[in-house]
């Protein structure tokens, strides 16, 4: 009996191995990842182009209809190409795409995807320049600077401008009114009027002053009051929402943890930011620590959406984060006289492994042109093309009855962070993890020696960067 079982098991193992070994992949997908596959010589029907959504926006239920509408319209207008939509939830999108790439089954187009979402797949996207040249695609509709934003250090142009999301300050008008404070300025260079009528520069010192007045404990004391109880805060003055340490520090000016030689560096302005904000969180209490951020009071991270944060620096894509109508937007404050409004930018990219690059470029052009108005509304993105912006904001006005001053968003586009706060780093995932650890440490723990921790961060990042080289 034992011998028979051994024989049976042996046969099963061998047959399974043979099945796995002989299974193979469809002929069209046998090329190695990163290598273009050969297109079928005589396609029997329309060329299939797979569009992978999930690395950025697009997987939310309310965004599906718009995308499906664009796909249907494209397929109706094109007999020779069939566009197939693949939607993957954001939290598993990177893993899913990686697996597809490893299996030689990568999609043709991915997006919308931002800078950070693309970093993991650097080098795997097609250079669009030859396709632009051969198709005669008109680039003059874009600001040349926004086109160059998508050019890789290698010179490859891997995207074209589609949606931009400038950042600015959302402020809760009810909380400002309750505190008897003037609203923050709507134009760069305008002063802020303090309660005593004096006009001061709109900078981070001013932000701190009004932030403390807008931070209130359960007894109604603000953070400037000596009876203020930091253990029972019910309203915060300010929060830099939904971003990481690099995004936060960019408020004090664009910089990078990587210098021109690829070494780890802690920029002086970022060091100043972390010290400033550490004091704001743990000494002056006008910005929330991790305990408050993770609590119901601040909707577990959506501080502005909770209605219990008077101001928050967030991108345009968060215009629906707060359901109330009592908010407006203001410009970012200046640091050392310079205003920086970090920018998010989404686009679509063609995978270099695509066997149908020309068909994929036809689709990409459609998404950027005819399909753009529908998609931009679905994603909440501001059109990179100026010609589409008026219609876009008119649609947003329908969603926000209080008539938000969208000129602020347009003005903030003129102060982007360069280098971008999401730009690539050597050994990107490990470096990001280490930076996040630093962020969670000082936001979660009182009394952290910021300078010492930043020095430790630099040492660790150097080791992580060296590992990649």
């Amino acid at each position: 009996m034992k011998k028979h079982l051994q024989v049976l098991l042996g046969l099963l193992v061998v047959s399974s191995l043979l099945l796995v070994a002989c299974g193979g992949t469809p002929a069209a997908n046998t090329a190695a990842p990163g290598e273009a596959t050969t297109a079928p010589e005589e396609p029997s029907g329309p060329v299939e182009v797979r569009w992978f959504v999930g690395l950025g926006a697009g997987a939310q239920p309310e965004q599906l209809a718009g995308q499906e509408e664009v796909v249907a319209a494209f397929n109706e207008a094109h007999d020779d190409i069939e566009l197939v939509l693949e939607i993957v939830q954001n939290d598993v999108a990177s893993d899913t795409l990686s697996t597809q790439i490893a299996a030689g089954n990568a999609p043709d187009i991915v997006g919308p995807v931002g800078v950070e979402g693309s970093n993991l797949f650097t080098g795997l996207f097609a250079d669009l320049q030859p396709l632009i040249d051969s198709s005669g695609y008109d680039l003059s509709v874009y600001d040349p600077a926004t086109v160059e934003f998508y050019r890789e250090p290698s010179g490859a142009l891997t995207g074209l401008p589609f949606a931009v999301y400038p950042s600015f300050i959302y402020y809760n008008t009810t909380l400002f009114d309750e505190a008897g404070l003037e609203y923050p300025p709507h134009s760069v260079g305008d002063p802020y009027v303090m309660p005593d009528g004096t006009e001061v520069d709109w900078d981070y010192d001013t932000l701190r002053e009004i932030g403390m007045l807008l931070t209130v404990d359960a007894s109604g004391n603000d953070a400037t009051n000596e009876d203020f109880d930091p253990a029972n805060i019910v309203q915060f003055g300010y929060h830099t929402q939904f971003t990481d340490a690099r995004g936060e520090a960019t408020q004090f000016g664009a910089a990078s943890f990587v210098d021109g030689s690829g070494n780890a560096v802690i920029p002086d302005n970022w060091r100043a930011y972390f010290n400033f904000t550490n004091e704001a969180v743990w000494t002056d209490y006008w910005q929330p620590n991790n305990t408050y951020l993770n609590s119901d009071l601040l909707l577990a991270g959506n501080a502005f959406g909770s209605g219990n944060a008077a101001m928050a620096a967030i991108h345009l894509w968060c215009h629906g984060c707060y359901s109330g109508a009592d908010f407006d937007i203001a410009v970012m404050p200046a640091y050392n006289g310079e205003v920086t409004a970090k920018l998010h930018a989404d686009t679509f990219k063609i995978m270099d492994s695509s066997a149908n690059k020309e068909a994929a470029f036809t689709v990409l052009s459609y998404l950027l042109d005819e399909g753009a108005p529908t998609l931009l509304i679905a994603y909440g993105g501001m059109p990179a093309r100026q010609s589409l912006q008026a219609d876009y904001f008119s649609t947003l006005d329908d969603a926000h009855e209080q008539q938000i001053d969208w000129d602020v968003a347009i003005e903030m586009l003129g102060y982007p962070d360069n280098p971008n706060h999401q730009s690539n780093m050597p050994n990107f995932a490990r470096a990001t993890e280490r930076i996040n650890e630093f962020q969670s440490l000082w936001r979660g723990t009182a009394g952290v020696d910021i300078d010492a921790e930043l020095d430790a961060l630099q040492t660790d990042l150097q080791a992580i960067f060296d590992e990649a080289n």
Partner: protein
Amino acid sequence: MAISERVFGSFRRKPKEPRGRLTNLERHETRWGLLFLSPWIIGFLVFILLPTLATLVFSFTDFNILHVEDTRFIWFDNYTRMLNDPIVTQSLVRTLKFFVMAFPLAIIIPIAISALLNSENLRFRRLFATLFYMPYMVPLVSAVLIWGGFLNPATGWMNKFLGSIGIQGPDWLQSTTWVYWALLIVGLWSNGNAIITTLAGMESVPRELFEAAKIEGAGAIATFMNVTLPMVSPIIFYNLTLASIGLFQYFLEPYVLFAQAGDPGGSTLFYPMYLFQNFFQFQEMAYGASLAWVLFLIILAFTAVWFGLRRFWVYEAERE
């Protein structure tokens, strides 16, 4: 002669008869049995054994999921790298520290609660047993999220309750010390399965044994130590083995509470979390596979030790 020996004397089983050649009927039944088992066997081979062996092979390569074509064998380099990776040591020490804290509680508390539930003097025993078991039926992810809110020092009910009786509650989830106690509380709350299995074991102890112990003059504690515990020792062994494996694979609670970050200050970056990071965040599949195999060997060693020690304390009627 010890009480347990005198009490158990009459419950020894007869030794099994040696097995001879299979009859035709037995061979026929075996063939059919294997046929019915074959879907499971095939599933096991294809979906468990082969992927497991694949990870072993990966662990000797520099497999990169985005550049599969460049894969080559680097043999023990990933394992050597582990020796020089400080996070491996730190996460392993952290896992062992939590093991030392949680393991005794994971075993003793189910025994204590089961003993209470098994008491003849307790009213509504079934109700209490159901209440203790119910948390086990709640999906763990939901439970952990609810606990995260419950333990939040700013708005959670735990500290509000402690505050109402004059105690300043700690920062459960942001303190590098208290976070382990928070995780222990969450773990014990959902330990209903161990309670129910231990209780079932206690309820199945033959009444004659207790009567015999009583006749021998044993008190409640002596009866519990010499009759109840030995009789449920196979179940304790079962729970102990599962607890060991579970604690070395401890992942879900810190993952849900701190979203892969190992907060606060890396204190919940347990070994399985670091393994997960390497696989899915850093996409270093080969290194992750090496970490997984080392974890497997550690768990295997611990389990082997438990099995080796079993004959010294686990009552097995067959062996008796």
